[in-house]
């Protein structure tokens, strides 16, 4: 099926928030802290500006608690007396003219008495930098399976490694933007977002309003990747506060520099591995420590940590696993959700470590993986027994075949021995990604979706899940059209507007197709049940029209609620049980060429083999994989957030490089389709998985090409030079 909105997007007709003309709208902007930590002493308004032209909002204008409602409500909407990071929002301004607004922003001086700050998440905080609990730890989680200490003692070999991954900026091509306005007493925000009901909750809380006094509407959203999961709650509050005070619509639109400077990024991480193995390469103990830099406020760090910890031991069976995870405070701009959500960090460490183990044992890295990959009936670190019928060995072997691993190894060896400065090799990574919210998360979300039979004979889908590029709109239509055997053009998708759509949960965690899609299938069943039979096609439409003829003026709404699949149990205290309803499995292979003159790495070929359950749409699914892989290529090789006092110094696209078309080869995508009984049409999640595999496959390839042991991403040429110098 063709993407529903493709032509509108390709021709520029799709209306993103800055494309929508709004009568009487003023521009809003944010005045931010220039220091990482301190007490606000004074705010001076420059005399060169006529401030009577401006609306100025500060923390005193909040009708409710000065808190951005999230996991813990520790982040203020606007700083009142103290700041905890550079770029923390202190004041908001609005004016009809954008240039005047910029001048005014420059004329405000926030004077702050600086206090000691901490920027290195890897060191214990000095006492005068403790700002959360007694030790700056936002969250600890621990997995304990078997007896790790005994198994380490008994192991033939113990292999250790420390791996670090850097922050990553989302670079959604559409910057964050939000319009706030008050309509019939209802505070409304409209803009670019992934999670309308998160914003709804944040508005209710800080504006002290009832459910029906706030309204959130999604505008076309130009990419998210997690960057529009948590941050838009902050931006929406800012737009709403300005609109309330200005008594007119106010639009805040970040430019790229502000967006990169002030919004969240992927959590930097350090992961230590201590692994016990037998001489034959059987992994008998995994002792893992995961440490995340959370930045200045809690935001989503606890759940990012949770996913990272659960994925840390990899798709391997081991009877003795201990994973200790911590997310800690630093005075950096808060880190937040980013595609993969903690898993890319720990999977990089695990998969890089697998190659190091193979090296130490003198084994082939493929053989080591084959020997340890989880088989049906075996369990993950949390004790979740896998019995999904996926042939994980075949996925690995397919990647090896398609990447011509062995043939290339021979050819590369010959090439490397003669070429003066180019070195080639293939690297692989095997991994998995849990789909949907972690643990009992989906049950807690209690998602609802509606399938509505319209009086025109058409069907309307009502969910809070957004199209942000991933193809949710098209996929939802396809799921319902195929379920009811009606033409896709007979299906409408309701605008994502909290006044009209139920809370089907956030558009995150690779959950939309699998979980919300499944809700829609059940919604179709419920709709048909009301119509008295398993109708499809023309019959369905006739029955629908008949119902409306018999019930004039009434709405036919079938609403369904999430029900956990049977047998899914999770113990959040002990971190035991079914961490996810299901996992997607993959092996990626990267063929690289390292230039020993420049230490630059060029990707020559990339093969991505995965089982994501039933593929709902070949073009959309391949697009998710190719895009995710290239985002991973950027993280692996060039995307380096350079922090100075906890703020990104290279916050523009000139100095923060993402891959262009010229930097990547075609990504060759292969799907295996082992259906998952509880996902729409048998689908599992797909969105995040592709982000996990590129970095370890590439860095493993670089290691094989050079003989060095890089343990860091981004592996920039400067870093590789250092690694090779010490190799």
């Amino acid at each position, binding site marked *: 099926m063709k993407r529903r909105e493709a032509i509108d997007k390709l021709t520029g007709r799709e209306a993103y928030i800055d494309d929508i003309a709004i009568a009487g709208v003023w521009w809003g902007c944010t005045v931010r802290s220039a220091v990482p930590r301190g007490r606000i002493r004074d705010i001076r308004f420059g005399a060169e500006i006529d401030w009577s032209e401006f609306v100025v909002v500060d923390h005193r204008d909040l009708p409710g608690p000065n808190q951005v409602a999230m996991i813990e409500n520790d982040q203020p909407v606007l700083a009142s007396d103290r700041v905890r990071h550079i770029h923390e929002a202190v004041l908001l301004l609005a004016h009809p003219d*954008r240039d005047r607004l910029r001048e005014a922003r*420059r004329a405000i001086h926030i004077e702050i008495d600086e206090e000691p700050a901490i920027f290195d998440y890897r060191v214990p905080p000095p006492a005068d930098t403790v700002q959360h609990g007694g030790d700056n730890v936002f969250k600890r989680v621990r997995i304990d399976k078997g007896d790790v200490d005994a198994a380490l003692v008994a192991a033939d070999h113990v292999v250790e490694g420390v791996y670090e991954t850097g922050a990553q900026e989302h670079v959604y091509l559409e910057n964050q933007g939000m319009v706030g306005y008050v309509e019939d007493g209802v505070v409304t925000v409209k803009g670019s977002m992934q999670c309308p009901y998160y914003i709804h909750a944040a508005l209710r809380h800080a504006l002290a309003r009832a459910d029906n006094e706030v309204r959130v509407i999604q505008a076309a959203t130009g990419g998210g990747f997690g960057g529009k999961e948590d941050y838009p709650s902050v931006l929406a509050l800012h737009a709403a506060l300005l609109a309330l005070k200005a008594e007119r619509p106010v639009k805040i639109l970040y*430019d790229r520099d502000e967006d990169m400077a002030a919004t969240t990024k992927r959590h930097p991480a350090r992961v230590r591995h201590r692994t016990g193995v037998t001489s034959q390469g059987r992994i008998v103990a995994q002792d893992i420590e995961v440490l995340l830099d959370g930045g200045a406020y809690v935001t989503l760090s606890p759940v990012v940590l949770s996913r990272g910890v659960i994925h840390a031991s990899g798709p391997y069976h081991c009877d003795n696993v201990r994973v200790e995870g911590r997310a800690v405070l630093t005075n950096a701009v808060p880190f937040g959700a980013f595609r993969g959500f903690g898993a890319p960090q720990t999977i990089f460490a695990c998969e890089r470590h697998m190659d190091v183990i193979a090296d130490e044992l003198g084994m082939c890295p493929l053989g080591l993986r084959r020997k340890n990959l989880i088989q049906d009936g075996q369990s993950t670190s949390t004790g979740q027994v896998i019995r999904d019928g996926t042939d994980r060995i075949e996925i690995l072997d397919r990647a090896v075949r398609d990447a011509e691993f062995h043939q290339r190894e021979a050819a590369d060896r010959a090439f490397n021995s003669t070429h*003066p400065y180019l070195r080639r090799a293939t690297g692989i990574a095997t991994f998995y990604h849990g789909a949907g919210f972690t643990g009992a998360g989906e049950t807690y979300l209690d998602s609802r979706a509606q399938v509505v039979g319209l009086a025109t004979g058409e069907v309307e889908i009502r969910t809070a899940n957004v199209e942000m590029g991933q193809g949710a709109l098209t996929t939802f239509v396809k799921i319902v059209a195929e379920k009811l055997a009606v033409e896709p053009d007979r299906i409408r998708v309701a605008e994502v507007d909290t006044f009209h759509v139920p809370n089907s949960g956030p558009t995150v965690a690779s959950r939309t197709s699998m979980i919300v899609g499944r809700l829609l299938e059940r919604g179709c069943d419920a709709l048909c049940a009301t119509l008295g039979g398993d109708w499809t096609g023309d019959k369905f439409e006739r029955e629908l029209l008949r119902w409306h003829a018999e019930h004039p003026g009434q709405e036919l709404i079938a609403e369904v609620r999430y029900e956990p699949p049977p047998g899914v149990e999770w113990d959040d205290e002990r971190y035991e049980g079914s961490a996810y309803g299901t996992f997607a499995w993959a092996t990626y292979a990267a063929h690289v060429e390292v230039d020993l003159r420049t230490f630059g790495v060029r990707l020559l070929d990339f093969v991505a083999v995965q089982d994501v359950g039933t593929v709902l749409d070949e073009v959309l699914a391949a697009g998710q994989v190719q895009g995710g892989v290239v985002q991973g290529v950027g993280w692996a090789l060039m995307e380096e957030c350079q922090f100075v006092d906890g703020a990104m110094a290279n916050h523009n696209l000139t100095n923060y490089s993402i891959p262009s078309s010229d930097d990547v080869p075609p990504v060759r995508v292969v799907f295996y389709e082992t259906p998952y009984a509880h996902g729409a049409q048998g689908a599992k999640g797909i969105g995040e998985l592709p982000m996990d595999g590129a970095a370890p496959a590439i860095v493993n390839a670089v290691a094989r090409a050079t003989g060095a042991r890089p343990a860091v991403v981004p592996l920039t040429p400067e870093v590789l030079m250092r690694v090779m110098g010490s190799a």
Partner: protein
Amino acid sequence: MTILLPGTLTDAYRMLSDDPDVTPVAGGTDLFAHWPENRVKQSTTYLDLSGLAELRSMRWTKSELVLGALTTYWDVVTDARVAAEFPNLVTAARQVGAVQIQARGTWAGNIVNASPAADGVPVLLAYDATVRLGSRDGVEDIPLDEFYLDYKKMRRRPDQLVTEIRIPRRTYQRAWFEKVGPRKSQAITKVGVAVTVAGETWRIAANSVAPTVCRCPALERYCAAVAGAKGQPLTSPSDLLPAIRSDVSPIDDIRSTAEYREQVLARILFHALNDAGV
């Protein structure tokens, strides 16, 4: 902000001599980045050259290729004759930004923007180009080699305008250009080097390793000596480091490190010399 829109070159010269603070602008690809937030640039007076047809030409004389001040990278990229005679100009131009920037960015603008990372300048230096400056008082030719004085300082008086870049037509036995950036296109150079060899004369110019794009005389002497079998044969990149250290002074900045720049410059040159059988 004020924009001056001269109709002729004579107008432009007059406007420049009337106000020493005027900034001439051609394609604007450097000047207009981050425009809405750039208060300093917005308070400047600009002299817009885009309407001056006199500056648009690219022409050949018997002894020179002459790039008018409005010659863009794209003009060069698409010119088969330039590709045949001065291939490094094309190679360098193709690595400036991407097609959108190549269509707007000018060689002359690249020279006077005076960025140490300027991508067009090393090849011009290696091809021994001369900058022609025009003013009400007449024409002055300055070898590009002598044009830069220090970081963003150059031998252009405020009343002068670069009108032409003149490149002598010579036979080169060899010409290389290598740009190293964070990615293949749309990249700001971390270290770049252009080399030409004409007879026994080596010209080596590097960017992003000093306050200005610069010739590397010690390297030139060293390479010429090695090539002429008068020096020690090269055994490793580090043989080149003393010469590099006497020619350039790379720094750590947001785009790379001094150590990387120095090492990579040595390695690129070493392998280029090796490839050439030197």
